């Protein structure tokens, strides 16, 4: 345990200690370093975490300037000096803790919830290859950690931009045969100022996503959908086959 790393933390209190020497073992993460500092060096340090296995998306921070989940970032390979800072574009609560309103105001705008079609009363039958699920599958498992928003180069220039996560969710629902609200959702994501047109396809969101999702892909699909609908109009979705449950489920 002789090896140590210097961790430099961007603190909200300018007078607070910023540099810490942290011993490092082979399997420890940035989150472990934060716990060590808070437990034993400076109890006033604030950071956020919950599940510690990359499922909840609470511990996103900037590690050496890049968006990372603290719990899934091994400390040792980062080198002798590690700089930690809160996510960009999120209002700071304290130290590394940010307010997620920056994320949710955008997320909410796309109506991110299923509005079920009346015709879909039972779970849809979606065999592989039917196209009912493949597109959606690629965009599921977003943990709304906000890393993509912080990494998005457009958000800095155009603060109204809905951002990668919200657009990814929007596409999931637009591609979902169960959903009835694609018209209103497309109207939001097609907005000139906030919507998909603003994306520069830098793919910084793809680069940082801890779940390996590609919001750029969702955005590209939304653009094509908007273009296609502008020229060819809208085709009604056929009602898919549905799975009847064995026992009285409803």
């Amino acid at each position, binding site marked *: 345990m002789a090896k140590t790393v210097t961790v430099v933390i961007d603190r909200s209190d300018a007078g607070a200690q910023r540099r810490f020497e942290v011993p490092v073992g082979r399997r420890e993460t940035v989150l472990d370093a934060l716990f060590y500092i808070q437990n034993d060096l400076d109890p006033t340090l604030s950071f956020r975490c919950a599940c510690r296995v990359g499922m909840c998306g609470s511990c996103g921070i900037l590690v050496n*300037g890049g968006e990372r989940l603290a719990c899934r970032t091994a400390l040792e390979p980062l080198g002798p000096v590690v700089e930690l800072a809160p996510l*960009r*574009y999120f209002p700071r609560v304290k130290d590394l803790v940010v307010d997620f309103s920056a994320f949710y105001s955008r997320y909410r705008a796309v109506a991110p919830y299923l509005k079920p079609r009346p015709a879909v009363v039972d779970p849809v039958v979606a065999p592989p290859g039917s196209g009912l699920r493949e597109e959606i599958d690629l965009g599921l498992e977003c943990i709304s950690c906000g890393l993509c928003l*912080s*990494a998005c*180069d457009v958000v*800095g220039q155009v603060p109204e931009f809905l951002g990668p996560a919200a657009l990814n969710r929007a596409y999931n629902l637009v591609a979902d045969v169960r959903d009835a609200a694609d018209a209103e959702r497309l109207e939001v994501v097609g907005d000139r100022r906030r919507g998909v047109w603003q994306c*520069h*396809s*830098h*793919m*910084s969101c*793809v*680069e940082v996503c801890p779940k390996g999702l*590609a919001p*750029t*892909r969702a955005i*590209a*699909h939304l*653009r*094509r959908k908007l273009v296609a609908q502008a020229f060819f109009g809208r085709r009604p979705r056929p009602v898919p086959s549905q799975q009847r449950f064995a026992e009285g489920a409803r």
Partner: protein
Amino acid sequence: MRHRVTVGSRVFTFHRITGLLILGYLYLHLALLSSVLLPQGPRDFNAVAQVVERPPFLAGDLLLFALLLYHAVNGLRLVLVDLGWFIRRRTIGLIGAGAVGLVVLGLMAGALWPFVVR
């Protein structure tokens, strides 16, 4: 707030810079043509052509072509991204675009060579 510098944003920033430079060149091109052509006629046109097709200018031409090529190849890559290509394989897209650009630039240099040895 510090802005993020990533591979993607560098590539894009350069895309915009090349775009602006090319737009600037467009006006230079038009100005040259109109100032030489309209008032002065074929003799001067050919005299100017003599000058601007000497090797130092050809090097400039090659540079201009490189800018144009960067803008074109990267632009094409972005269009392909909009069609769903090279998103999960961004690195392949970037490397591929770079390779295509270099090959075309080499062809252009080869095509300009006769002007040099003329």
